[in-house]
């Protein structure tokens, strides 16, 4: 019965490789059937997708501590491990979390000792006589981890400072903002998720998505959520990562970022503050920056299917400062306006920032209604100010007290929306610089907000 179940689960996993629950179930069944090595394989693959998955860690632990039947430990593999020693296996053992750590020190030689220790449970003394065959286990994991390193190139270019991560947030973690989610789905996610429909309608995946809006309204968070939705790696690129005083190095850094994203595909490459990196070339006398814009254009255009699996996102507060060439079809041709959070989103943000603080009597509904126009960052600041009031009060009186509704409403009274100046600039853009209707969405919002 188990065999049948296992084989049907195998088929299901083959169909839905990203379904963590299926993998977990299969791993547990395999372990129950005595196939610890394959259970480890599945546990590790789950940890690649979701490094924090407690069940997968438990499965891995159970599989490690289950004595393997002699017949199932392939001695040949152990020997193979000995032969392949030049690459210390522990370096390959690490699931994604540890890989990120290793990537932060690209030039360092892999040191098997610390990694071997890291395999031990924290706080436990290493046993003099281990009951488990660690070499075999390492070898098992070594095999499953192989695809991550098959190109033999380090996933981080030498000298670069890019860190790639696996996003764990999805759009479901973004409170409210339904219209933005709908727009993202229509403009970006639906074509990506439905390859058949995409083929049917001959919809091209070429081009990136530009998110714009007032500062502090969650553009970066949404970019992470998109990566999470796509189950893709997330590579965030800021101005500081690209700018290099050496001639040509800034362009090289742009190239390296795209190369890294291509190697780690599927990968979301996210350019924050694209207005700085992709500034109108007519506005800058800085030759380094002009070269960077040119390089960015080259990378976005790609060659043939070079950018297959690379999803390019960018965010800016000032889309009007972005070089028009970057906005042409096939580049950042889709735009999404990320506005200050709506009521539902504001409630989520208040809840998020207050839930781990000592609060009492907070009426989220009232706060939500009173905080119209505030950005997410403003709300975070309101909660900070409220906490500060309670803290100072407690320190002064010597008596601990909770953060009350009054603290938060007083803090709300002190904070003015940081989005106002942005909205003034946006009004000028709509009034004077929107001859081609690029900012129709913004215009509609400003009219609705009675700012136009």
């Amino acid at each position, binding site marked *: 019965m188990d065999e049948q179940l296992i084989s049907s689960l195998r088929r299901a996993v083959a169909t839905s490789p990203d379904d963590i629950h299926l993998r977990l179930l299969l791993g547990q069944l395999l372990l129950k059937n005595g196939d610890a090595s394959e259970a480890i394989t599945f546990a590790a693959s789950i940890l690649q997708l979701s490094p924090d998955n407690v069940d997968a860690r438990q499965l891995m632990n159970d599989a490690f501590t289950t004595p393997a039947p002699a017949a199932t430990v392939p001695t040949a593999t152990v020997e193979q491990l000995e032969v392949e020693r030049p690459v210390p296996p522990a370096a390959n053992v690490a699931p994604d979390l540890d890989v990120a750590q290793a990537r932060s020190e690209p030039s360092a030689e892999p040191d098997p000792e610390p990694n071997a220790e890291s395999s031990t449970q924290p706080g436990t003394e290493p046993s003099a006589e281990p009951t488990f065959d660690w070499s075999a286990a390492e070898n098992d994991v070594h095999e499953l981890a192989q695809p991550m390193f098959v190109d033999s190139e380090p996933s981080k270019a030498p000298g670069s400072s890019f860190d790639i991560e696996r996003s764990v947030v999805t759009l479901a973690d973004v409170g409210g903002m339904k219209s933005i989610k709908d727009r993202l789905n229509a403009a970006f996610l639906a074509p990506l998720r439905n390859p058949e429909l995409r083929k049917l309608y001959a919809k091209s995946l070429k081009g990136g998505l530009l998110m714009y809006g007032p500062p502090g309204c969650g553009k970066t968070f949404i970019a992470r959520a998109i990566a999470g939705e796509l189950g893709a790696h997330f590579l965030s690129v800021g*101005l*500081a990562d690209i*700018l*290099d*005083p*050496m*001639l040509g190095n800034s362009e090289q850094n742009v190239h390296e970022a795209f190369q890294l994203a291509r190697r780690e595909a599927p990968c979301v490459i996210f350019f924050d503050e694209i207005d*700085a990196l992709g*500034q109108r070339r*007519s*506005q*800058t*006398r*800085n030759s*380094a*920056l002009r070269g960077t814009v040119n390089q960015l254009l080259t990378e976005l255009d790609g060659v043939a299917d070079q950018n297959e699996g690379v999803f390019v996102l960018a965010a800016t507060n*000032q889309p*009007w400062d972005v070089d028009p060439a970057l906005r042409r079809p096939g580049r950042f041709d889709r735009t999404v306006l990320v506005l200050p959070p709506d009521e539902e989103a504001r409630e989520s943000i208040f809840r998020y920032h207050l839930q781990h603080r000592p609060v009492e009597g907070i009426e989220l509904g009232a706060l939500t209604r009173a905080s119209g126009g505030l950005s997410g960052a403003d709300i975070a600041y309101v909660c900070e100010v409220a906490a500060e009031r309670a803290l100072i009060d407690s320190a002064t009186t010597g008596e601990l007290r909770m953060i009350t509704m009054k603290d938060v409403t007083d803090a709300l009274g002190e904070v003015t929306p940081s989005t106002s100046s942005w909205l003034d*600039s*946006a*009004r*000028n*853009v709509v*009034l*004077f*610089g929107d*001859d081609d209707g690029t900012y129709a969405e913004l215009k509609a919002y400003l009219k609705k907000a009675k700012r*136009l």
Partner: protein
Amino acid sequence: MTEHAAKPEDAALTHARTYLSLGKPADALRALAPHLASHPDDDRGLCLASQAHLVAGEASRALDAAQHAAALTPENEWAWRLVALSYSKLGHHAEARAAAATAQSIAPQLWVTHAQVAQVDIAAKRITAESQNAAREATRLAPLEPDAHLTVGNVALAQHDWPTAEAAFRSVLRLEPEHAAARNNLSLVMLRQGKAGSAAAGFVDILANDPDSEVAVRNLRAVAAVALRHVHFILWVAFAIVTVAFSSAGQPDESPVYGLAWSEFLGGVALVSGIVVLVYVLRLRRAAGARFGQFIRSVPRLDNLLTAWAALLVADYLLMVAACFTSVHRAQLLYLLAGAVLVAGSVVVILRRNRARVRL
């Protein structure tokens, strides 16, 4: 030293320069911080820090950094120029002038030192022959440098020498068509020369390229105010003519002749004033070209008081026209109401002026 062979400490300075060119003074200061911590006496780092503080609007910090640099390397003209600029921003014009003169004496071969002298004088609103000579010397030394011509234009603008200013700003735009300051100042010259339509088009153009330009928004409001002031003046004149013509008339109100004369005279004045206003608006439209519509549509969004003012002027004219088609008693009432509306318009003008003063 080539950029390829740049020392590590130069990297921080290059980073800071790049951030400054992007208008990001905070990032520039962040890039400079470790460099200045390890090289507190590097005059180049201090000058860049001073420049970043100036861009960030922190003139006293800029002055501290620049003075430190000037004390370390008294022959560094850059440091002295920054001292001059910082003092100028702080309103200490005599000290600014002395520092600018020091920079000029250190490096008379550099156009920027001469331009700095002229700029300090412009800020102090004390244009002398020396300022003019300094500006001219800057363009002689660097004829292809837009900012040298800009200085000449700014000196002329401060002296109300509109033709020289216009020529200088046009020279800047020939060298750098997107030069924001030159475009703004050229539009300002147009406005001062009574070419409000061209000025409006210029400011709308600036805002289309740089929507963050508060100066352009302020100047566009000024253009709208100038236009409304013209219309307001025309309507005041019309009101005054009718008042003077009939205040001395001895005929009784009931007389049909009086009524006819009143209606016809008022109608004639309303027609003439309407034509004058129309001609003025058409001239504005022709001068502003395609930007006229944007200018008109933008006014209500830029300033509520301007909108109120315009609405009062329209109401005044409508009252005048309505008075032509009604009985004498009612017409006189409407006429008086029109006068009250004109007065209300003047009150709005005073309110706008006061608000502008508070903003400054």
